[in-house]
């Protein structure tokens, strides 16, 4: 390896590439690695508003694991991700399959499905969503229209969780676009050949489409899981974490500890706990699906 040769275009030294990517390397050090390490160190201290911060070892972590507030928020977050992610994958794949055909006006449908996902994180939409589920809001109006009992959406934990899940589900378009482009890459001949062999469309889906989509499904699974486990905006704005902390996610606990109670040490320990949890969940997903990481530039 010592005298490895670098294959570059004529007149280009081996450090040109390194120079080109140097903004990224500087950023990775300054904006990712530094805060990442710094967060861990802060988590080992009792850094707060008053007094000189002191190293207290794993004390914060001991406190976290015995804190009822944290354990509840961890349960809320994991359950939220466990419900939302599969639902979102199924809906986005299902709609992508429906859209994957030469039909007139299909572009308009694609836009309709995609728009909520780019607007969904916008605070204006979050405010709108809050309105939809008030006692006289659109959701209850529709329930009445269909003869069902209107619900007190913000009053109980299951309904409040449902509001957040529905908002994120409404944004399935981003996952759908990824599925759609993967579906377009499957050569039509595969399905035609299967049809000749007497394979129906449902069997065709399970025997051809699904295996070919494995990688993309996994990519969406990972992306959606990571973002679901970090959920903050929607519960913060819509339910305020209530009722009784039933929609208080770990992200909200971190925010409150850091910016409301100014317990920087404890807050960073919670964020590291969340980071370790996310990593563990992702590794578990890798393991369950029998995958090892192998990314090549």
């Amino acid at each position, binding site marked *: 390896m010592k005298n490895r040769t*670098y294959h*570059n*275009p004529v007149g280009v030294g081996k*450090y*040109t*590439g*390194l120079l*080109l*990517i140097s*903004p*990224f*390397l500087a*950023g*990775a050090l300054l*904006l*990712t690695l*530094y*805060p*990442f390490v*710094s*967060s861990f160190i802060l988590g080992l201290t009792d850094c707060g508003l008053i007094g000189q911060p002191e190293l207290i070892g794993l004390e914060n972590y001991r406190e976290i694991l015995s804190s009822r507030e944290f354990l509840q928020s961890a349960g809320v977050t994991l359950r939220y991700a466990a419900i939302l992610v599969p639902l979102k994958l199924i809906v986005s794949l299902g*709609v992508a399959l429906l859209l994957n055909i030469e*039909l007139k006006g299909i572009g308009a*449908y694609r836009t*309709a499905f995609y*728009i909520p996902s*780019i*607007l969904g*994180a*916008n*605070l*204006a*939409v979050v*405010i*709108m969503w809050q309105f939809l589920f*008030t006692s*006289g809001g*659109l959701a209850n109006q529709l329930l*009445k229209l269909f003869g069902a009992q209107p619900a007190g959406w913000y009053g109980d934990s299951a309904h409040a969780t449902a509001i957040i899940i529905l908002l994120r589900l*409404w*944004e399935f*378009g981003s996952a759908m*676009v*990824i599925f759609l482009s993967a579906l*377009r890459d499957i050569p039509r001949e595969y399905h035609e050949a299967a049809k000749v062999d007497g394979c129906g469309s449902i069997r065709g889906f399970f025997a051809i489409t699904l295996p070919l989509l494995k990688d993309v499904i996994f*990519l969406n699974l*990972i*992306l959606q899981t990571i973002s679901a*486990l*970090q959920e*903050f*905006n929607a519960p913060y*704005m819509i339910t305020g974490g209530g009722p009784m902390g039933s929609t208080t996610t770990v992200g909200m606990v*971190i925010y409150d500890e850091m910016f409301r109670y100014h317990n*920087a040490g404890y807050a*960073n320990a919670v*964020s590291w706990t969340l980071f370790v949890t996310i990593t563990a969940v992702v590794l578990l997903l890798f393991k369950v699906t029998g995958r090892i990481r192998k*990314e*090549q*530039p």
Partner: protein
Amino acid sequence: MKKLLRYLILTVIAAVMIYPLLWLVGASLKSNDEIFSSAWFIPKNPDFSVYIGAWKTVTPYTMGHYFLNTFLIILPKTIFAVISSVLVAYGFARFDFPLKKLSFALLMGTMFMPSIVTVMPMYILWSRLGLLDTYIPLTLPALFAAEGSFVFMLIQFMKGIPKEFDEAARIDGCGALRTLFYILLPCIKPVVVSITVFTFLWTMNDFLTPLIMISSVEKYPLSLALRLSADSTGDGYEQNRVLAMSVIGLIPSVAVFGLAQKKFVSGITAGGLSG
């Protein structure tokens, strides 16, 4: 027959997806009573005057002021993101260099790094540098190709461009940067459009970062101004005004998406990037 069924299902889903937005626009023109008594989105007596109040907001500044603030963040951020991502992607896509594998692994790593871990130490750092309540914490990171997905999308796209193009330019005497500028850049225009559009949309949507970094109302971007208005408007009080503000707040995003849609959808699908 099958086709008809497919259209039917798609139409139903599309209606469910779009109706809340239609309702939002309609409800902003309704009286407060009507908002909560009818599910139909078209108002009986549309009252456009509410938009005058909405534009004025409940804060000392108008919506125009907050739009301007947001654009003052978006403009440098977009320029920084395009320049840095293109350079970095060019390095990865076309050159061989020491530590390339490690650097690429780092790129993947930063893409999957939960931002919640990094945001607090960055807050402390910016605060020590005395840069809180300025736009620097919101814009400067873009200079370092902070959005890994942009770089990734560009690498994928550049790899699709035949290397022979570069070689021809090389023979004609172009250096590395001139090759990038004259040969690759024209080919990757759709991706540059995508980066611009996504930076725009994501900055319009960003809530947590300004919430943490910006404290004076005068400097609030649109998202924080909306929150302030929603919070200071109690139950049963001028609900339509808050909804009207939300409608105004969504217009730039919808407009940009509408304008760029054709160009940038090809870009997203190529890079697997999502909103």
